[in-house]
C-alpha cells in the first residue's frame, strides 16, 4: 500500500530535537533585534505574550514573534478548559507567524511551549459581548490515544491470526493444482489483508512483500511477490505449479508479519491518519482499477478498506464525537459508498470489475467516495496528539 512520507519527525516527542539545530542560529537573530516593536506579540521562554488585546469580536490576526532561543509551539486557548482556538505548531526562533481567527465573545490566552523552557500560560484576554466566533477544540493528548492504540494493536493481531491460516489454505490450493479453489482462497485471504488497513507503512517492508504492486518491477520480475503477483498468475494462465513458490513465499511472509507485529507499537498519530488514508488508497488504486491484476475485485477491496476505516473510527469515536460535528456524515457517507459498491457483487460471489462498470454506477461510486473523503479529512487533524500546558 501507499506510504505517506511525513515531512517532519513523528509528532511531539521529537519536537525538542527538531529545534535544537535551529537554536544555534538564534544568537544573532531575535536577541539582537533589540526592543520589542509595536504591532507584534513577543513570546519567549520567560514571557508568554505579555499584555495584548483585540479591539472586540470579529476577525483579527495577531502576530506572534518568537523572541526566545528555541523552537516553540504556540497555542491560543480557552483558559477555562485549554480548548484550542488556533495553534502555531512549530515556530523557530526569530520568526513571526500569524494567528488568524474569528474572535467570539469569551476568554483567550496564549500558551507557550518552548522546547528549552517550562511551559507558560499568558494573560487572559476577555472579548466582551455576545458574539459567536471560531470554536475551540479540546485537544487530543497522547494519553487520550494510548487506550485506542492498544486496542488497535490487539485487534490487528487477532485479524492477522485469521489471515495466516487463510494464506496457508491458499498455498495448499495452489499446490493441489485446483485453480477454482486457488482463486477463491486468494480472494478470501486478500480481502482479509485489505481489512487491516495496510496503509502508512504500518507493516513496514512486509507490505511490499505481501501486497506490492508491479509498478516498479514490472510483471515479469522475479522480485515481484505477494497477493498481486499471485493474482496476476492465477488470472493470466500461468501454471499453478509455477505459482507454488509465490504462494509459499506469501504464506511465510504473513507468518513472519504475525510474529513481527507483536513487537511493534503503533505511532499514535497514525490512528486518525489511517482512517482516511485507507479510503484515499482505495480511490487512487482500487476505484481506478490500477490494482486489478486480473481478478476484477478492486470494488471488494474498497469494501474491505471501508471496514478498515470503520475499525479505526470506532476506536476513536469517544474522542471524535465531542469534537467533530461532521462525524455522523462520515458514517453515513461510508454506508452510502458501501451500499453502492455491494450492488456490484455478482450472485456467484465475484465482483464487477471497475473497467466494466456502467458510467452511471462508476460516477455514483466515485462521487460518494470523494464526498466521504472530504468528511473524513478533519479526523486526522482532530486526533493528532497535542501537547498541552497540563502535560508538563
Amino acid at each position, binding site marked *: 500500500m501507499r506510504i505517506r512520507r511525513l515531512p517532519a519527525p513523528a509528532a511531539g516527542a521529537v519536537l525538542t530535537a527538531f529545534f535544537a539545530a535551529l537554536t544555534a542560529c538564534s544568537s544573532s537573530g531575535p536577541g539582537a533585534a533589540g526592543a520589542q516593536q509595536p504591532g*507584534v506579540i513577543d513570546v519567549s521562554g520567560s514571557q508568554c505574550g505579555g499584555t495584548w488585546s*483585540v479591539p472586540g469580536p470579529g476577525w483579527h490576526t495577531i502576530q506572534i514573534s518568537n523572541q526566545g532561543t528555541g523552537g516553540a509551539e504556540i497555542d491560543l486557548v480557552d483558559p477555562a478548559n485549554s480548548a484550542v482556538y488556533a495553534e502555531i505548531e512549530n515556530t523557530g526562533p526569530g520568526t513571526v507567524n500569524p494567528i488568524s481567527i474569528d474572535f467570539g465573545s469569551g476568554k483567550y490566552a496564549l500558551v507557550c511551549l518552548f522546547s528549552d523552557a517550562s511551559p507558560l500560560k499568558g494573560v487572559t484576554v476577555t472579548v466582551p459581548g455576545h458574539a459567536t466566533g*471560531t470554536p475551540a477544540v479540546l485537544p487530543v493528548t497522547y494519553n487520550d490515544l494510548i487506550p485506542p492504540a492498544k486496542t488497535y494493536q490487539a485487534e490487528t493481531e487477532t485479524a492477522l491470526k485469521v489471515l495466516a491460516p487463510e494464506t496457508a489454505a491458499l498455498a495448499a490450493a495452489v499446490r493441489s493444482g485446483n485453480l477454482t479453489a486457488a482463486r477463491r482462497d486468494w480472494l478470501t485471504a486478500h480481502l482479509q489483508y485489505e481489512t487491516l488497513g495496510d496503509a502508512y507503512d504500518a507493516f513496514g517492508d512486509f507490505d511490499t512483500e505481501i501486497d506490492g504492486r508491479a509498478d516498479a518491477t514490472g510483471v515479469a520480475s522475479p522480485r515481484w511477490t505477494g497477493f498481486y503477483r499471485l493474482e496476476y498468475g492465477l488470472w493470466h494462465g500461468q501454471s499453478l505449479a509455477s505459482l507454488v513458490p509465490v504462494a509459499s513465499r506469501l504464506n511465510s511472509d504473513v507468518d513472519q508479519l504475525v510474529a513481527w507485529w507483536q513487537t511493534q507499537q503503533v505511532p499514535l498519530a497514525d490512528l486518525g491518519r489511517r482512517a482516511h488514508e485507507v479510503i484515499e488508497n482505495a480511490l487512487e488504486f482500487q476505484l481506478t482499477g490500477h490494482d486489478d491484476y486480473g481478478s476484477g475485485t478492486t470494488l471488494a477491496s474498497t469494501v474491505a478498506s471501508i471496514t478498515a476505516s470503520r475499525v479505526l473510527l470506532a476506536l476513536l469515536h469517544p474522542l471524535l464525537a465531542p469534537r467533530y460535528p461532521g462525524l455522523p456524515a462520515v458514517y453515513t457517507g461510508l454506508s452510502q459508498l458501501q451500499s453502492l459498491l455491494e450492488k456490484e457483487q455478482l450472485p456467484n460471489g465475484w465482483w464487477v470489475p471497475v473497467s466494466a462498470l456502467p458510467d452511471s454506477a462508476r460516477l455514483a461510486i466515485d462521487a460518494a467516495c470523494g464526498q466521504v473523503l472530504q468528511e473524513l479529512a478533519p479526523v486526522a487533524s482532530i486526533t493528532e496528539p497535542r501537547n498541552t500546558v497540563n502535560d508538563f
Partner: protein
Amino acid sequence: MTSEPEQPVHGEATATPGRRSFLRGMAGGVAGGVVAGGVAGGFAGYAYRGTPADPAAAANAAAVQGRLPAVPFHGKYQAGILPVPQRATAVVSFTATASSRAELAGLFQTVTDRARFLTTGGTPPPVGIDGPPSDSGVLGPTVLPDGLTVTFGVGSTLFDSRYGLAASRPLHLTPMKSFPNDDLDPAQSGGDIVLQLSAGNTDTVLHALRDIAKNTRGGMQANWRIDGFSSPARPAGTVPRNLLGFMDGIANPAVTSAAQMDSLVWVNPPASGEPAWTAGGTYFVVRLIRMFVEFWDRVDIEEQETMIGRRRGTGFPLDGTSVHSTPDYPADPTGDVIPLTAHMRLANPRTPETASSAILRRAYNYNRGLDAVGDLDMGLVFTCFQQDIKRQFETVQTRLIGEPLVDYISPFGGGYFLALPGVTGPSDFYGRSLLA
C-alpha cells in the same frame, strides 16, 4: 502602529518573513488599513479588523498586485457571458450525482456560494486544529478575484427522469448534434452541468476549480475537462489569434447593444415558448476542435488565406483595408476575391436573411500535449452564446459543412447547455427559478 496603516500592500517582491510580512496577509481582508489596539510604550497588543469578503478592499489589493479587479457577481445575467475572453479558462462538464431534487438544489446553492466568494475575493477562514485548511492556498492567504467569472450551465440530460425536471426542459436544449465533419467522443461530450471558469491568470482558474470541486464532491462528478487560454492581441490593438495564426472572432454582435443582445443572446420567454424560469439565460454551445497544426503549417499562405477569407498577418478581409472593415460580398458574387467557401463567408454571409443566425462567439485556444503520432494536440475551445441553438449555431454550422477548412480541424467533443439566469442577489442562487 497607527502611523503606518496606509502602508501599501507589498507584492511578491517582499522576500523574507519578518515584522512587515503581515502586510501581505492584510490584502483583501482589511478595508482601508483599519488598525486598532496599538498603544505606544511597551504594549505588545496588535490586531487588525478585517472582513472576510470585502470587495472594495479586494479590488484595491488586486490593483496593487497586478491582478484584475472583481467582476460583479450578482446581476440579471451571468457575468461571464458578454465579456471578451480572458487570458485563462477551464471548461468542465459534470454528471449530477445528487440523489434527489432537494440535494440538487443544495448543490446549486453550494456552487453559488463558492462562486460568490471566489469572484468577490476575501480571506478564507483561518486554519484551525479541527481539520485541514479550507483553502488550497494556491492564491496565497487572500483570494483576489482577478476578474474571475463562473458561468454555470445545464445540459439536456439534467431534464431526464432523475429530478422530475422533464416538464421544465428549455425548448431548444437537446444533446449536441453530430455534424458530418465531426468525430465526437462520447467521453468528451455532453454533461448534466457545465462550469466555465475564466480569469486573468491560470492559477486563479485552477484555484476556483479546486475550491468548487472540493465543496461539491458528492453532488456532481466531473466527466471531461479542457483548459484554454486566449492570447494577447498581436499586434496590440487588434484581435487575439487562434493557433492557425488567424485572428479569431472579429465579427461579433455588439455586446453594448441591449437590442442586439435581446434579439440574439438572451432567451425570450414566454413569447418564444421557453419556460418562464429561463428568463435571463442563454444557450451555451461548447465545441472542442482539434487543429492539425503540423498539416496546416505545410499549407501555403494563399491557400490558408482563401480558406479563411482574411489576411493572416493583418486580419483584414481579403477585400478590405482594416480588421473591422465589412467584406463586400455583393461586389464579389462569384467569390473571385473571397471564395464562396471561405470560412468567414460561410459562417457569416452578412445578408439580411442570415442576420438572425449570428452568434456571440467566445473562443479560446487549447494546448494539451501530444497525440498518438507525436503531433501537437492543440486547437480551439469554441464557445458561443445564443438565443436559439437551431436558429443560430446549427444554422451557421450547417453552412460550414464541407468547407475546405474541415481537412485541418476535427471537432471531437463539447455539448449544448443552457447558461442559467444570473444570480440576482445574496439570497438568490443558480437555478432557483428552475428548482424552487
